[in-house]
């Protein structure tokens, strides 16, 4: 659960002065450089993480079931016959060319497997975040408005209840009720057995797909909703103490107009920033939701890959999640500056 966040690396919020665009660009370049360093450290971390595995490091990277000649090819490709520092260099250059090796389980290049899963994950996560933010922003605004009432306390408690419930458990209970007992929705997966899929269009644009999407998306949305709701509520309360709200009221605007035109609009900045920062947390939820609903996405693939000792796939999925989080942290920082004219870049 994130709160009002001050972006990293952003200096003091001093009053506007000087040449903002130039400062902004130097700030952006600075942050891009930082992002590269973070990526470098993350990939180094992954390199060592997967080499402290107990047992023979060779067996971690080479499928024992492959014929000897093929094993040697893989060994060359990853430089596993060379000293550690040379392995590291090979690993890094492979990584930045998107060369993640061949999956032990699928016998296919990792990049192909992941490419397929990325879309399923993106759609599920996008749908869940969309629902959570739409409901959260509106709900948070209303809660700030009716602050102190019974409904507000109940609403806050309810949102926190779903934030506290482990999302895999919520998923199990949701399946128990809506799939098993009521039979309204399928018990998991992304499409019915026997559905023919010819293209990505068929895969994601069909009633059958939507039918499968409802339960996992709602489950994840329930888990995510507390963050936008509480951030919006806090921001609204702070804005509502400001004089211009009193002004708007004094002008004779209706409460609804004061709420939507003045208070909400000025409270959206922290919510937008938190959306980016929440994705890191959402990815964790995604791993669990996909596992429970057998949704063929990146998160489920990562868990399955670890269980199957399919290290190339596990490594690549984790790396991709890291890139996404690092990138969105950067976007959050930049948005913070663009949306709030008071932010300066010195």
């Amino acid at each position, binding site marked *: *659960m994130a*709160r009002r966040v*001050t972006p*990293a*690396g952003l200096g*003091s919020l001093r009053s506007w002065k000087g040449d903002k665009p130039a400062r902004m660009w130097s700030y952006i370049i600075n942050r891009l450089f*930082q992002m590269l*360093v*973070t*990526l470098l450290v*993350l990939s180094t*971390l992954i390199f060592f*993480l*997967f080499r402290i*595995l*107990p047992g023979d490091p060779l067996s971690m990277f080479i499928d024992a079931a492959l014929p000897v000649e093929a094993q040697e090819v893989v060994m060359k490709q990853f430089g596993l016959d060379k000293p550690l520092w040379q392995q590291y260099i090979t690993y890094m250059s492979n990584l930045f060319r998107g060369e993640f090796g061949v999956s032990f389980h699928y016998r296919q290049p990792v990049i192909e497997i992941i490419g397929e899963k990325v879309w399923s994950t993106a759609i599920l996560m996008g749908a869940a975040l969309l629902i959570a933010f739409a409901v959260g922003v509106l709900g948070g605004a209303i809660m700030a408005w009716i*602050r*102190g009432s019974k409904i507000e*306390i109940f609403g*806050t*408690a309810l949102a*926190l*209840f779903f*934030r*506290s*419930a*482990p999302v*895999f*458990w*919520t998923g*199990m*209970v949701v*399946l*128990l009720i809506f799939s*098993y007992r009521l039979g309204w929705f399928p018990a998991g997966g992304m499409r019915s057995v026997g559905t023919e899929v010819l293209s990505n269009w068929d895969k994601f644009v069909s009633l059958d797909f939507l039918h499968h999407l409802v339960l996992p998306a709602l489950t994840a949305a329930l888990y995510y909703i507390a963050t936008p709701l*509480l951030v919006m509520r*806090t921001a609204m*309360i*702070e804005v509502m*103490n400001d004089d211009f709200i009193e002004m708007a009221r004094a002008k004779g605007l209706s409460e609804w107009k004061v709420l939507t035109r003045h208070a909400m609009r000025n409270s959206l900045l922290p919510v937008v920033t938190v959306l980016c920062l929440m994705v*890191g*947390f959402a*990815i*964790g*939820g995604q*791993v*669990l939701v996909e*596992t429970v609903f057998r949704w063929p996405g990146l*998160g489920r693939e*990562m*868990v399955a890959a*670890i*269980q199957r000792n399919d290290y190339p796939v*596990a490594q690549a999925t*984790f790396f991709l*999640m*890291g890139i*996404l*989080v690092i990138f969105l*942290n950067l976007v959050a920082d930049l948005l913070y500056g663009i949306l709030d004219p008071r932010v300066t870049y010195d």
Partner: protein
Amino acid sequence: MNALREHFEILMKDRLGMIGMAILISFVLIAIFAPYIAPYDPMESQYRPDGSFARMDPPSREFIFGTTRMGRDVFSQVIIGSRVALIVGIVSAIASTLIGVNVGLISGYYGGRIDNFLMRLTDIVYGVPFLPFVIILVAILGPSLGNTLLAIILISWRTTARVIRSQVLTLKQRVFIEAARVSGAGNLRIIYRHIMPNIVPMALVYTAMNLSTAILTEASVSFLGYGDPLLVSWGKTLHMAYVAQAIYDAWWWVVPPGLAITLLVLSGFFISRAYEEIANPRLRER
């Protein structure tokens, strides 16, 4: 001591904070007296009064939360499982607060190169996806309570560090710090005697939140099958239930452990929120 009592009083004024405190204390009592409360050995197969194997029994007088596929008593598992949850929650909360507060204090107070180094380190930790990292580290090092704790603590100090640093940056400018320096107080004395007391409410916001996050994370890792093989935990009970597809015929195996996790995690969030009202006076009712 006075400051402590003051915190406690403000916590008690906040209705949700009070409920949270009550839930947390109840769970601590349950965990301490768990062996006396649990009617059976949580891992032992049970038999019905008529001597038959108590497999997948719905809740009854003998087994108030029913039994599992192996005939184990769900109620006893929930009671004993509170221990793992609380140990993980409390240890991670304390450790991440200690690390985070110190990083934040040092970074904010000294500024310059030290600040730059510590904050870039924090940025890097922010780039690590939390739950996937914990899953991978625990899978690699081997499932155990210690490894789960290690993985959680390695990441969870980051928010505390960042927030405390920004608080220290504003506190540093205040007159009383200048006064302390003029009267000859050393750096460490200023940091721990003069600045630290002022960041306690904000630190507690994140201590309580880390308690909740750690418990959720441990439950998730155990649910995925990487729980400590020697210990009974709520996440592991749910893992067994999921693997046995209990959602189809044994709701009693699924609902109680999940509710226990939810309540305990919720208590942490309630307490955290109550402290936030203290730490951020603008939120207080006018």
